């Protein structure tokens, strides 16, 4: 009863091309372009506003937010003194690398076994549906039970408290997309490899996996963004300041800075900008990854 729409595997990320160049640009095109730029500016304005505030004095933020005098880096100085940005980034990076790598490896193995191995009976199909049920489970329902599990397993207070649920939550969609692609994998290549005496393990990793790289890359991007931005599990399962993630750190800004709005905005900018720079660099892959399953 997977009710998520992402029940349909999608082919590799859609290649975005610019719209065909029009032969003639009339007044309509000029108006359309102007409207499009205006809307984009309005949408981006909140982000620009935060960056602007991060250079304002607290007095100006409260009383003259539109003034452009007295801009300075003082907020950043205070932000750097209070903020443990490096710890936040280190923790989040460890969580993302470990959970995404392990999650993809085990999802790929399961998806391979579910689609490429040959058995009579319906076990494989039934198992695949069992995995896809997870698409309909909202993570919020898992928070308390997972918290109890982490305590029972003695994982509370370690990275594994978050790594295991992160892996579990990404498995259903990984399996959905991977099984979709693996099903279409041409049998001839496999047969040729079997003739050459290739074993199962090499078949999975050396013959088939290299051809699955585009899907795996799409999933990796999607999963890294999920873990990077994840908040509900982090706020529930982390109470040790040395394990704070980026999202968890951001949620504490209001408490940490109280009325020091300038430093708060400087800290927000220090989290925001790296994320936007990375997005700008991998923009096509990120959009393809996040819309995988919906766009084909």
């Amino acid at each position, binding site marked *: 009863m997977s009710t998520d*729409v992402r029940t349909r595997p999608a082919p590799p990320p859609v290649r975005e091309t610019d719209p065909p160049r029009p032969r003639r640009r009339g007044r309509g*095109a000029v108006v359309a372009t102007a409207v499009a730029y205006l809307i984009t500016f309005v949408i981006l304005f909140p982000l620009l506003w935060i960056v602007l505030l991060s250079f304002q004095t607290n007095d100006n933020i409260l009383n003259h937010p539109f003034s452009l005098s007295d801009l300075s880096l003082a907020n950043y100085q205070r932000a750097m003194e209070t903020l443990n940005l490096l710890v936040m980034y280190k923790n989040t990076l460890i969580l993302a690398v470990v959970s995404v790598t392990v999650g993809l490896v085990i999802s790929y193995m399961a998806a391979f076994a579910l689609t490429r191995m040959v058995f009579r009976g319906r076990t494989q199909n039934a198992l695949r549906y069992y995995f896809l049920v997870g698409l309909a489970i909202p993570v919020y329902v898992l928070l308390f039970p997972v918290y109890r599990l982490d305590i029972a397993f003695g994982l509370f207070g370690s990275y594994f408290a978050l790594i295991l649920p992160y892996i579990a939550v990404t*498995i259903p969609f990984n399996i959905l997309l991977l099984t979709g692609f693996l099903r279409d994998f041409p049998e001839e290549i496999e047969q040729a490899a079997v003739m050459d005496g290739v074993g199962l393990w090499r078949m999975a990793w050396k013959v088939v996996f290299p051809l699955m790289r585009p899907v795996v890359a799409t999933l990796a991007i999607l999963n890294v*963004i999920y873990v990077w931005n994840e908040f509900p599990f982090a706020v*529930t399962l982390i109470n040790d300041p040395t394990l704070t993630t980026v999202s968890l750190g951001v949620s504490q800004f209001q408490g940490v800075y109280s009325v020091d709005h300038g430093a708060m905005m400087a800290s*927000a900018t220090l989290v925001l900008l790296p994320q936007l720079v990375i997005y700008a660099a991998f923009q096509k892959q990120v959009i393809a990854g996040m819309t995988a399953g*919906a766009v084909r």
Partner: protein
Amino acid sequence: MNWLSTRRHFALMVAPALIIYSVYMIYPILYSLYYSFSDYDGVTATDFTGLDNYRQMAQDDAFWTSLRNTGIILGIALFLLIPLGFLLAVLLSGRVRGSGVLRALVFAPAVIAPILVGLIWIFILDPEIGLVNAFLLAIGVPAHPQWIGGPTLSPYSIGLVYLWQQIGFVLTIFYAGLRMLPRDVMEAASLDGAGRRQKLRYIQIPMLRETFGIVTALVVTGVFKVFELVYALTGGGPVHLSEVMVSYMYHITFTTQQYGYGMALAVVVFVVGALASAATFLGNRRKEEAS
């Protein structure tokens, strides 16, 4: 592949994913369901109280408020986010110079951590320090609406922030759909003298029926995941008036530690979310059959 397919190898390859998934996703659902029939609070002995938690919910005003607020956000998503996302996709798929860059920029909010989105919007919406009211003051409007933190406007504001966050995503899906439309149909329509509006009404919208279905289903599931925005913008307050279902469940479970009641709320979150998605799914199917 026949030779290589032994049951032992199959089990070894499926086991890691199967175990982690079963322990961390399936077991928790059963756990929630089980304890939703109890008065589990972690302190006193746990009794099984049947449907008491669900009866309590029916009489809990804060629960109904959270359901209504989730409904408000859903309404904004269905009646503003989807149409606006579609129109923006139509605009950007037309003769706009630099449309690729604009699409990437509009998508940017979807990449930012939701908790950071919440923090950013405090500085737009807060009645005292926010941009909107500062702007109203600057242009001489004396009104001082409580966009967040007041008794009425918060869920609408949260819905609009959700719209801001998702519009690039919705736009991208529609844009891809528009690009898939066969170009000769559009050209034939132009030759027959169809205007932009006619093409939109009689060709693009009907041919994108399936895309509308996908977007609707994605948006419906997405609305039930709104949590960070509430957490950052209002904390559910004042007195739970801006709570959504998920944030109220979180409050009951982790702040008041009524685990039994919290699990009952979790079960309802799961069921209502699944029903809404199933309704969308069935609606899509019927529309497709009708066409």
